[in-house]
């Protein structure tokens, strides 16, 4: 009884946190990057709220399972300032950032708060980056053999669970899409090819395919770095509320036809 009650309280608290005004204020505090009295994160809030509404209560909401409110997002995202890469000076690159992105939001904050006019644009850019980084993925590195069909960094987040252990498998049963990872999609005898590959470049300009600009126009279908990944067909936040977390309705093959011209 108590466990169930506490679970409900956790979800309720998470919902309030993510849908209420607490979100932007927390962003500003965590990132410490308010610019001209307005947080660059303010534009991101509706998107965050929309994403949160789709996640809560859905299959990617781990709060009931773990009893930790932060698991509504932290399963895939680096929470709060931990995701902010250090931004120190003009022209500073991310190259020296920690691979895990552990910290140093303070440096971004200091840059943003600086009053030197030469620094201001840099600070503003840093601020924007800091807010964006706040919600970044956990930062996987893709498979390291060059020039090979491999799942991209975003798909590795999905596959970290969807390998049949934590969640349903995309390897052997449902999609069988990874059969070609080691062979460049050469499929062996008798292998049942059921579904769509990932990690492949979108065939921009090829006959039979919708131009990439049109595919991505309304933001529902995403092609990270121009490649077809898990998030091209699925929205882990379930914003559209479609079965199987599809990015959009597949009624009359609408999702397929968003890319494939028939």
């Amino acid at each position: 009884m108590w466990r169930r009650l506490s679970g409900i309280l956790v979800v309720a608290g998470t919902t309030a946190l993510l849908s209420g005004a607490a979100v932007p204020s927390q962003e500003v505090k965590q990132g410490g990057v308010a610019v001209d009295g307005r947080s660059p994160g303010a534009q991101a809030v509706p998107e965050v709220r929309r994403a949160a509404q789709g996640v809560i209560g859905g299959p990617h909401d781990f709060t009931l399972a773990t009893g930790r409110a932060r698991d509504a997002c932290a399963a895939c995202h680096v929470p709060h300032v931990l995701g902010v890469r250090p931004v120190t000076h003009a022209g500073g690159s991310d190259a020296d950032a920690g691979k895990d992105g552990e910290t140093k939001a303070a440096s971004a904050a200091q840059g943003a708060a600086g009053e030197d006019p030469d620094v201001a644009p840099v600070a503003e850019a840093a601020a924007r980056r800091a807010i964006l980084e706040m919600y970044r993925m956990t930062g996987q590195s893709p498979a390291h053999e060059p020039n090979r069909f491999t799942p991209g960094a975003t798909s590795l987040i999905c596959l970290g669970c969807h390998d049949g252990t934590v969640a349903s498998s995309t390897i052997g049963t449902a999609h069988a899409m990874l059969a070609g990872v080691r062979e460049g999609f050469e499929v062996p005898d008798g292998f049942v090819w059921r579904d769509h590959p990932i990690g492949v470049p979108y065939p921009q300009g090829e006959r039979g395919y919708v131009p990439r600009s049109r595919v991505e126009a309304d933001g529902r279908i995403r092609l990270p770095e121009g490649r077809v990944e898990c998030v091209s067909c699925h929205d882990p936040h379930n914003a559209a509320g479609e079965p199987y977390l599809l990015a959009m309705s597949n009624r009359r093959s609408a999702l397929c036809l968003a890319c494939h011209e028939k």
Partner: protein
Amino acid sequence: MKRQNVKTPQPRGAGEREHRSTCDARLEAGLSLAGCVVSVVAAGGAMFLLAGCASDGVGNDRRFEPVTFRAESGELEAVVRGDFFEFEPGRDRAPKPNLLDRIIFGERRSATRRLRTPQGMTFDGSTLLVCDQGGPGVATITRGDSAVRWMSGLGRESVAPLDVCADGSGRVFIVDQVAGVMCSAALKEGLAGGWEILLASDESHRPVSAAVSPKVLAVGDARAGRIERFDVATRRRLEAIEYGAGGARIVSPTGLAFAPDGSLLAADAVQGVVHRFDAEGVPLEPLGRSGRGEGEFVRPKDVCVTRSGRVVVADAGRQSVLVFDSRGRFLIEVRGSDGWPGFTMPGGVCTYDLEAGEDAETGVPDGRSGQSREFVVVADTLGAPSLVLVELREMLSGGEGR
């Protein structure tokens, strides 16, 4: 049925892979132009083009260079000693063998079928068993045997194997996400027939991991969120474990291992912790915690315990392998570095020990080496090398490994 190339666009870039991809692209282009031309032509073209690729491949002249990670305390070092790249005989040139190759295949290597997405593994004597959903099946690799064999004649095929364990007396337990936990008592006879379903995968259960001690078989159930236990001798169900220390709920026990003292470790990929239980299932202090700091876990998928009691955890989220001592103190994290690209998605880990006087490469007693050596084999589910060999070495005073 002939091999077929699925019509997907090929990546662009330099190197052997690009050349191979170009060949595939040529093949596809040929197929497109031919339109309705029958597959005989395509097959002929494929043979021609593949022959053109025969001198290139993943193997080439790649030579493995060991990479060393040292614990800050200076008491232990982990040396990445070898990896296992797949190649196709007749198409790819064989890579120069490293220690893992030689342990697995001896001096001759002739891979017959590739490991695609290796996950759970175990050593049973000198045989390494590897679960591979992409196979699909369980690969059996006998040390120095120069071949990868696949379990066949199971009576009930394992279609999506996730984990495997063996009790050392010929019994093998396979966790298949479709069938459930299957048990066979015939490893030494080639696993022919005799499979028994111990815990079926259904609406209530989804077995994902297993470990066996002389008395108890433990099975991680991701759907029920608990660890089922069975008496190995009678197959009688024992009391399940649902909570870790402090009442922490078990959510996704994706990796299980028994320590030499009989205690059970359970990697919980969602909770980001390694639960520990004594031989009776009573919770002990857990190992690590969820987080991205030193010795913390993001997505711990599998765990194993070495003979000396060290705990090794494969973390798919951190893309690394973490080593702890028997008391739970973090020692080393093995991950990509300047000299080594690291893991992509480590999904399985098992120990491999060499007895004193045993040859490191063949396992044959040679009477030369005076000390036993601890190795860990890591299955990189999506990495370019499918298996990676790491040696754990105690440091002598003065910071020198032996």
